[in-house]
């Protein structure tokens, strides 16, 4: 007895749909790995003088073009740990700060002219710029 081919048992439309679904699944699989943070080279110098500190007066959502914004909480206290060509670098013990893409990086805040310019990644020693500078309201503390 002759076996029937797929084309004989399945209408062309179904085969087409199945192909489309498989292609979609394949592309979706590829998409899992396409969110990359824009890691820039940076020179970091640790703070030596008296550290500047401030309290953040607002919640901030910093978009980095990765699809995963970094959120900073109101009333978190930040102290300067260094400086880069993109601005001064601040760290906090009040919340975890990460830059998230396909990989996740612990990060520190970079501020220039009262605007967030991006994040410094101390483990990778790179800078990730914000999609655009974000003005912030802060209160200086000693």
């Amino acid at each position: 007895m002759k076996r029937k081919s797929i084309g004989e048992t399945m209408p062309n439309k179904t085969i087409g749909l199945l192909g489309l679904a498989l292609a979609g699944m394949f592309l979706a699989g590829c998409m899992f790995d396409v969110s990359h943070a824009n890691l820039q080279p940076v020179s970091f110098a640790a703070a030596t003088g008296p550290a500047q500190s401030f309290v953040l007066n607002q919640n901030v959502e910093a978009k980095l073009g990765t699809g995963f914004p970094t959120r900073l909480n109101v009333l978190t206290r930040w102290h300067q740990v260094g400086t880069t060509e993109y601005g001064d670098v601040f760290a906090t013990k009040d919340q975890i700060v990460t830059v998230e893409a396909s990989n996740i990086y612990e990060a520190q805040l970079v501020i220039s002219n009262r605007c967030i310019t991006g994040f410094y990644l101390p483990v990778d020693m790179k800078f990730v710029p914000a999609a655009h500078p974000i003005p912030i309201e802060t209160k200086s503390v000693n």
Partner: protein
Amino acid sequence: MKKMLSLFALVTVAALFTGCASGPKYSAIHSTFPPIAQDSGRIYFYRDSMLGAAISPPVKLNGNPVGTAQAQGFFYVDRPPGNYTVETSTEVTRRLSLMLDSNQTRYVKLNISMGFFVGHVYPELVENAIGEKEIIDCKYTGGK
């Protein structure tokens, strides 16, 4: 048909539990863990979800295997202060970079997300208040 359904249910349940951790719960054992040495910090790794239990990739810290991402399991390592990279690999590799201070405790949650052929396990740094709560029912796998 009834027999087939029962068999299917049995296989499903078995598949669900394969790969789940089986040690003592964090809540029962954590008081027996030694205190963190003065010149070290501690990193807890935990996976509180049962989703994708059959997938349990090794967890690497700075390239060295330190344990397995078992469903509902946890383990910890003590390390000197410094910079660390946590890595898990299934069909893709996911990384987390973090800093560890002296006498500091950090919690790394091992999440599972959808993949093409198999799920992806990705490490995420969580706030201690969250980690302390979520780890409670996880079972100790003893690390590497």
